């Protein structure tokens, strides 16, 4: 049979395809719908937090940080309750990472605060002298892309039924209203905990720097998922 296949490339390709596709079907499909269920009370990310998640992706924090606490005592002692599948239900993409050059961040919101991040992201060595994490000063001057984050919220609401309220709706007008009524006030709550005057001034003038968004995102990682 193998000899026959070697002379018949088309059937050869078909057989190879079936053989390699098999494992994916068997391992991924059975748990697919169960694995997408949220834990009770899980709230979707706010638009500001989604924008922060985009900064997290853009500056690729996941190249050094995991968001997956494994069920070992040494990990739960260090980071808190081990991670549950349902906590990730609104994470598109998943951001587990594969390398822990820095600590896990899945519950960092439980033990780090806005002002701590403000100092640490500006210059990690000033907070932890031996740190090898890069400083992310450009996040204090680059503006977060709130509109794209809003577009993402609209998309996941419409397509995946992520439970956002009626204020998340298509179109520019809905976005501008949401920005003014919800996103800016939320950003001001973050800057209230920060010291840098120029950041406060930017938000007061209606612009949101990346650092504000990423802090909002990091504050959310932890118990605030369900609060």
């Amino acid at each position, binding site marked *: 049979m193998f000899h026959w296949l070697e002379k018949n*490339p088309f059937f*050869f390709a078909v057989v190879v395809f079936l053989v*390699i596709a098999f494992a994916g079907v068997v391992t991924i499909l059975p748990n697919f719908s169960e694995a997408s269920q949220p834990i009770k009370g899980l709230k979707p990310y706010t638009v500001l937090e989604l924008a922060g998640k985009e900064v997290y992706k853009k500056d690729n924090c996941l190249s050094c940080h995991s968001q997956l606490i*494994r069920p070992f005592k040494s990990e739960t002692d*260090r980071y808190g309750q081990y991670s549950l*599948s349902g906590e990730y239900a609104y994470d598109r993409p*998943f951001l587990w990472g594969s390398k822990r050059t820095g600590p896990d961040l899945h519950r960092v919101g439980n033990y780090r605060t806005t002002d701590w991040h403000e100092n640490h992201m500006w210059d990690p060595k000033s907070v932890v002298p*031996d740190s090898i994490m890069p400083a992310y000063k450009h996040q204090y001057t680059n503006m977060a892309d709130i509109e794209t984050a809003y577009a993402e919220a609209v998309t996941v609401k419409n397509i995946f039924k992520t439970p956002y309220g009626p204020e998340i709706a298509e179109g520019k007008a809905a976005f501008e209203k949401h920005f003014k009524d919800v996103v800016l006030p939320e950003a001001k709550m973050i800057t209230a905990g920060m010291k840098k005057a120029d950041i406060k001034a930017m938000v007061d003038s209606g612009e949101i720097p990346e650092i504000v968004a990423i802090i909002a995102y990091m504050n959310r990682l932890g118990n605030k998922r369900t609060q």
Partner: protein
Amino acid sequence: MQSNAGMEYDYSIVKLFLWTTVIFGIVGMLIGVLIAAQLAYPELNYLLGEYGTFSRLRPLHTNVVIYGFTLSAIWASFYYSGQRVLKVSIAESKFLSILIKVHFGLYIIAAAAMVVTLLMGITASKEYAQMEWPLDIVIVLIWVIWGVAMFGLIGIRREKTLYISMWYYIACFLGVAMLYLFNNMALPTYFFSGGLGNIMHSVSMYSGTNDAMVQWWWGHNAVAFVFTVPIIAMIYYFLPKESGQAIYSYKLSLLSFWGLMFVYLWAGGHHLLWSTVPDWVQTMSSVFSIILILPSWGSAINMLLTMKGGWNQLTENPIIKLMVLASTFYMLATLEGPIQAVKSVNAIAHFTDWIPGHVHDGTLGWVAFMAFAAVMHMAPRVFKREIYSKSLLDAQFWLQTVAIVLYFASMWIAGITQGMMWRAVDEYGNLMYSFIDTVSVLHPYYVIRALGGFLYFVGMLMFAYNFYKTATSGRKLETEPQFRSPMA
């Protein structure tokens, strides 16, 4: 088998891919050295403003060495050996002649767009699948074109039986196509929100645990179908052609091929041990990772035994040296991987530097060595010139071998040290080390790794120079060399 005599093959596309192999190799490895050094000396993060941080550059390193360096080498090898084992020239078909130009042109455009977008931080953030949706579409197009070229050549072939290498190229084409398509399923948010935001942005079709499953089904098998399958295709062709030895066992190649096809895909879950994916999936992936040793070692042993009776060539021919050491590193990496996939070992190894250490056993020792050997075998036949310098090739081989040892030894130690420190507890059961303790202790190993990477990069430059000189000013050859490549 008909004889090769009188066949003229069309190497125009092979030459182009040979050059891009060398260029992407230099660029990708240079970035690799930089990011390795950044972990030892964080000040190096600020050379290029926001574009020069470790985190921005790391995906650039992986993407350039995978999709630049490795894919170029694979395609050069495919278009070279494909014509020869099928006994057909690309020039015989007008359609294929044009198609391969489109293949190369689109590839260069995609590569340039990849570098720019990744530097800007436009990323889907899934490992080895960072490129955003417009690039994904171009990549799918390139892949389809390659498929058409491959099956087009097969369609007009004179040699009816497909040689072993062709099995692997076909599998590479199908495997990557399937995995890439499923893993990159994403919705461009601009079109689902009434025209809001950045048009490049997309959101994954899968969430959380499911996304992780699909990603590592891809991630692991990108290793399978880019770093393993086509590289085996290369060695099955180039080792017998360079050594003049016949493949040791046809049965073993058959067993290894079908075994690899069936087993590899199950093992993806071993990237997710102790995570929130179902326990049975984790255990299955562990078990299949162990079974994977069989087909992997099957291929490697088949290669090593092919040299039976011809081991003297190992001392005389640096190209043979490269290929034999590549097989050996393949054996090492395919033993190391399954060990790391045992759940109790994984509990310590996962998230540590032992993992990149393992990857580089495979990529530096197996993939790149095989690529260097393939390029050096093709160069004299494609450019019809003698290889510029044997001693340079030899020196490169030894330098890079030392470099790999520095790399993996330091990363083994670093990984296990850190893994043990994370879990160490004192007599009262409290954690002994703060996280930063487990970072500071790694400094010397990061320095050694960066040094290893630097030496490997120097070897890459030696290789590039040797290649450049061969292509432009090597002594002209009258007839195509049979077997052993001529070197000055």
